[in-house]
């Protein structure tokens, strides 16, 4: 689905990612863990195409296309979704209007007819139920006045509405209480399928209790230094990150 080869990324002239290589196949859920400031969000933002993230070396191939050639909206229409760590609010624009514009932008890019308001409303009602959100939710302005939990649930709501093939979830679990966490995890789990992939970025192991990741990677100082399975995550929970740093130092 997506292959990242030796990716080096600068932000404001400082090198943050120092050679990331990662391959995610269809159906897989990869987890990237690491301390704060190691470049986890940088990776998410580069994949989504955010401005000011400069790729100095390396490549990203998404479904046989060079991802770096595509604008953010082209990447979205190609099935790439980013669940933001800090979703921004857009006052005055209500959710229904916003989501309908997004859904139709994707449909249009695929050569499909746009959805009218009636069909859209019927569709969105189903999705709202899945995320345990009341219908009044879609009449509120995007993220404006939303609690932290509502914002994160809104991100997943958008994911299941836009139906991407690669979903990058940037710290989707931060700021959530147990109940909200369960709903979000459930939303992601229900959405999994053999042709969809996920990159979940987190530094807590907690959300992983509700999911079945295929691979767990540790990001440290701009590089993926260790890869494993759920066992690795459990080890990190027990021992923290410093043992990895020591291991690396010993290896020289």
């Amino acid at each position, binding site marked *: 689905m997506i292959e990242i080869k030796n990716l080096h990324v600068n932000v404001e002239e400082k090198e943050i990612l120092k050679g990331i290589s990662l391959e995610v196949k269809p159906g897989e859920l990869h987890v990237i863990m690491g301390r704060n400031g190691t470049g986890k969000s940088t990776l998410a933002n580069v994949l*989504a*195409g*955010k*401005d*000011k993230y400069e790729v100095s070396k390396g490549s990203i191939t998404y479904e046989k296309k060079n991802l770096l050639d595509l*604008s*953010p*909206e082209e*990447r*979205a*229409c190609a099935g790439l*979704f*980013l669940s*933001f760590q800090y*979703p*921004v609010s*857009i*006052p*005055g*624009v*209500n959710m229904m*209007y*916003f*989501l309908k*514009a*997004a859904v139709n*932008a*994707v449909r249009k*890019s695929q050569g499909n007819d746009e959805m009218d308001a009636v069909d859209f409303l019927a569709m969105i009602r189903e999705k709202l139920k899945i995320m345990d959100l009341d219908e009044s939710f879609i009449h509120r*302005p995007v993220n404006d006045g939303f609690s932290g939990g509502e914002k994160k649930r809104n991100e997943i709501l*958008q994911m299941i509405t*836009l139906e991407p093939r690669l979903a990058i979830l940037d710290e989707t679990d931060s700021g959530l209480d147990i109940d909200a966490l369960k709903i979000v995890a459930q939303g992601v789990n229900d959405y999994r399928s053999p042709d969809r992939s996920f990159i979940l970025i987190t530094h807590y192991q907690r959300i992983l209790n509700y999911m079945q990741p295929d691979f767990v990677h540790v990001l440290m100082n701009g590089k993926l230094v260790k890869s494993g399975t759920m066992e690795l995550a459990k080890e990190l929970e027990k021992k923290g990150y410093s043992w990895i740093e020591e291991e690396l130092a010993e290896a020289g």
Partner: protein
Amino acid sequence: MSNEAIKKTIAEDYKYGFETNVEQDTFSPGLDEKVIKRLSEIKNEPKWLLNWRLKAYRHWLKMKEPTWSNIQYDPIDYQAISYYSAPRKKSAGSLDEVDPEILETYTKLGIPLDEQKMMEGVAVDAVFDSVSVATTFKESLKKAGVIFCPFSEAVQDHPELVKKYLGSVVPATDNFYAALNSAVFSDGSFVYIPKGVRCPMELSTYFRINAANTGQFERTLIVAEESSHVSYLEGCTAPMRDENQLHAAIVELVALENAEIKYSTVQNWYPGDKNGKGGIYNFVTKRGACRGDKSKISWTQVETGSAITWKYPSCILQGNDSIGEFYSVALTNNFQQADTGTKMIHLGKNTKSTIISKGISAGNGQQTYRGEVKIMKSADNARNYSQCDSILIGQDCGAHTFPYIDVRNPSAQMEHEATTSNIGEDQLFYCNQRGIKTEDAVSLIVNGFCKEVFKELPMEFAVEAQKLMEVSLEGAVG
């Protein structure tokens, strides 16, 4: 998408910028009593009106140009302007007599004057430079007793009405530009709705400045008798030119007991090029008097054009239980400037006023909202709600707010809210990441911002206004 990439200014060509090739009668530039006498003569005006003009002119000579606005502009040379220009072919009531070039102009502007092709039931008065060239649906309106005609025609056919109301809301002495307009106004629209009549259709006037180096000084007067109702819309465009042109108009509205006047403006005068060269100076005095009890006047404006906009459509709430409303969306892009707002003067008892002002600044645009709410001693139980919001797009524009609140009656209730926000890169990126292109995202956000005002526009024009905003904002993101 870098700032620079977004900043690339692609301002869509102002598509109304074309010039119409038509023979015009134009006065040579300059202003003195002779010019005014000639103007009045051409229009075959009665003596009382010529004297009214001359009185205004003499007063104007003694006045000083106001400089308190928050606007920078080169001084205007009043002697370098021509004060009259009209298409040579005289047009009478029938469309067949209108110069076909002019008809084509209006079609290009999307305003078909052909009665069959007209927007469903909207009567149109088309003013080309200083004269009204055609008014449609006159017969249908006549049946209802509604008078809708060019101002100059009203002077001939309904002099008593004109004499009674002209200058009663905006006297010639009111301000510098009002005095100038009173001296040299050439044409505009006159509307009279008799008692109890609900005007059967929307009335609208399209103003088009064509000739170079002319000023446009139109005068509109709308009188709504007891329990009558009218909705009026004005649209404005002008060709692209390097020089600035002055548009100093006056609009007077009079609403008697239980009457309602709804006045909407979609203004798209040439705003100047992207470097700020050229463009219309739009210095206008608009005022409505709610004379009768329970009368209501509401102003709705969408201002996207003009190099400079300087206007405060206002309401004088004389009648008890009268209502004044002001809904405005003003856009300043590139190097446009606007100092605009409203005045609500509460005199009667139980009067209400609502002000909703939305300003959008982009490029190097500078926008100032200036609002005055005055509650006089006699105005028991007055209520005002004011909301003034600004959105800034990019780093180089400005939004300023000067609210004036003058309350002289202790029973008054006032609410004032103001917000300022910007369309940030993060918001646009969020939309991009959901598949929405940047221009569409800006539209979404701006529409959401303006919808409270757009919903006050007559339906057909709400759509036009939205499209106009989109076009005017092109290239604005940065």
